[in-house]
């Protein structure tokens, strides 16, 4: 494995980690406020569909992005209605949302485009272009020219022109969302209250802060972030929507969230790790590691296995927000 291959794998790691990261941060906001969200998958899926569909119809990826975010926020509101207003079971609501998204997207796709539950493939302005950082193109050309000649370049410059530069804007948005989330959650009054409401809602209520409003706010943020994640899947990573294209990413994001113990910076590392696993799994079918041959299915299952190990508390116990999953009933 040469240096350039490593860079290429890391490059696709960043791409593949982006939807995970956005969804993971969405779950972070939601669960920190005490609303367990296993509907991340469904919200990503509706957003993936509506961004691709609207982008295909209008020809503008930005209008598509807005449509995707709106749809994910609407699904978030269903979750909020069920789990905050009507104090229903948050897990069951999440399951319902996942199914609703899985069925609805295909149904509408078939009705609008009649292409077997997919959108037309997107091109041009209907997709997110990759952004080339200053000088990146020149560096890449220089590298290729040197390799085409007799030179043997180290490929060190590829870190810049391949790994750092050349992603779509949503990748950078996702990376930026990490410090922003950290700041909002741990350095603002809103964040303090949001975390408090996930630990002890009664105390927050006693202090005169509305539990319901805080939880709805966190759910709206989760909708926005899953909207971005879904839009990236269908208009950045792929060129169009196909049935069930999230393919369990919402659950991997959930796994990453537990792995990260509900902290933004850890979430970044967890998502990069799971992205790396996916990137390696995509590139190599079977991997030989000190004499053992690891099958590709093992690589695919690894995020889930790691999460179970973490949950079991063998490697650093993961303790979720205390009020998670319980509807808040005001005392009378």
């Amino acid at each position: 494995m040469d240096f350039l291959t490593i860079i290429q794998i890391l490059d696709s790691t960043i791409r593949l980690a982006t939807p995970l990261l956005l969804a993971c941060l969405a779950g972070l906001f939601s669960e920190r406020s005490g609303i367990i969200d296993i509907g991340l998958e469904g919200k990503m899926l509706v957003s993936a569909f509506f961004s691709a569909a609207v982008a295909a119809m209008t020809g503008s990826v930005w209008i598509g992005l807005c449509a995707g975010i709106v749809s994910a926020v609407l699904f978030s509101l269903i979750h909020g209605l069920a789990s905050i207003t009507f104090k229903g079971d948050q897990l069951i609501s999440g399951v319902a949302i996942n199914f609703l998204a899985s069925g609805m997207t295909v149904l509408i796709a078939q009705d609008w485009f009649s292409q077997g539950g997919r959108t037309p493939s997107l091109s041009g302005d209907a997709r997110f272009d990759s952004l080339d950082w200053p000088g990146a193109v020149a560096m890449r050309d220089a590298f290729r020219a040197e390799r085409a000649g007799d030179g043997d370049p180290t490929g060190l410059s590829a870190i810049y022109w391949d790994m750092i530069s050349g992603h779509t804007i949503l990748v950078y948005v996702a990376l930026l969302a990490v410090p922003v989330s950290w700041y909002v959650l741990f350095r603002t009054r809103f964040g303090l209250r949001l975390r408090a409401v996930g630990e002890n809602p009664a105390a927050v209520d006693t202090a005169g802060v509305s539990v319901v409003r805080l939880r709805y706010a966190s759910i709206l943020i989760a909708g926005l972030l899953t909207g971005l994640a879904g839009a990236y899947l269908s208009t950045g990573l792929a060129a169009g929507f196909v049935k069930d294209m999230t393919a369990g990413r919402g659950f991997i994001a959930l796994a990453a969230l537990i792995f990260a113990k509900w902290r933004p910076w850890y979430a970044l590392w967890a998502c990069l790790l799971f992205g790396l696993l996916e990137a390696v799994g995509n590139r190599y079918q079977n991997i030989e590691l000190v004499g053992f041959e690891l099958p590709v299915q093992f690589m695919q299952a690894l995020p889930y296995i790691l999460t179970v190990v973490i949950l079991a508390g063998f490697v650093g116990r993961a303790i979720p927000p205390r009020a998670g999953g319980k509807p808040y009933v005001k005392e009378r």
Partner: protein
Amino acid sequence: MEKMPKWADVALIPLINLVLALVVSGIVVTLIGEDPFEAMAIMVRGAVGSTYGWGYTLFYATNFIFTGLAVAVAFHAKLFNIGGEGQAQIGSLGVALVCLAIPWPHWILALPVAVIGGALFGAAWAAIPAYLQARRGSHIVITTIMFNFIASALLVYLLVETLKAPGMAPETERFPPGTFLPNARDIFAAVGIEFGRSPLNIAFLLGLLACWLVWLLMWRTKLGYEIRAFGHSESAAVYAGISPFRIVMLAMLISGALAGLMAVNAVMGEQQRLLQDNVLGAGFVGIAVALMGRSHPVGVLLAAILFGALYQGGAELEFETSVPREMIVVIQALVILFTGALDNMVRDPVKRMFLRYGKRDPQPGTTPAE
């Protein structure tokens, strides 16, 4: 009157929830340009309008009985087992290994062993999340979701690497004929009734038996009482000397075993070989079925037949109109949403209505002295 009469709880509210889910589904059908009443008629006709339709309806229902009972038993212990899908997949592995182990001479011999195989493998797959919940406090919902994915990766690996029959498709060879279960068509033909060709087989009776056994277990045995007591109040159960570890383990093992039994119907009864995806979401339908059936075996049976009809009707709908099969998934989602998550939306007004009705209509002279 302190609370609602029982019939309102077990029949009226689920019915209102179902109607709400169907109304919203009807709106969806209208929005995609089809007549909802006609769609409904096609679905009903397709599901129960012929012996062929009934055959498929009850075949699907058999799957949902097992997965529905699996979720229901766990619900009684206040455990949400989302892992029915994975447990059923591993259960199918157990059934397939039994069927392929020896050239079975007759299905009567193969069936009991396959039942044990499916139940054991399904239970084993539920055992690890159960242990982690009981001993380490890891949330069973998350672990069972993870185990669904691990199960499907494991099954793909086994089918690609070790169990694969010669040929392109990742599937095992066909089971020996001695494992083929009697089909409804053959059984009815033996008594002179013509029954359409469908995968409905003797496993349906096994499903009915499972309903009865679960009822017996939950309401007529000490263990069932302990499970229900634990589900109502863990602290009260502990005070009464019930071991939480034992209840969590046993409830989940029974739940996993029931999910694993689904393979007897789907894999042994229909596919007659082990395929990559043989559960096809039935594990998740079990959640809707258990919610709808209020976790009671009779309710689960009725809800399973309803969902069986929905699946078969949905297939006919796709055949005759432009409504794709995914309509079933939407209806299923709405049923879960209304009967599960939005239950209080209907329950509270109904409760209030009963309270008001109870107050307005007291017997003269028997006004409660307060």
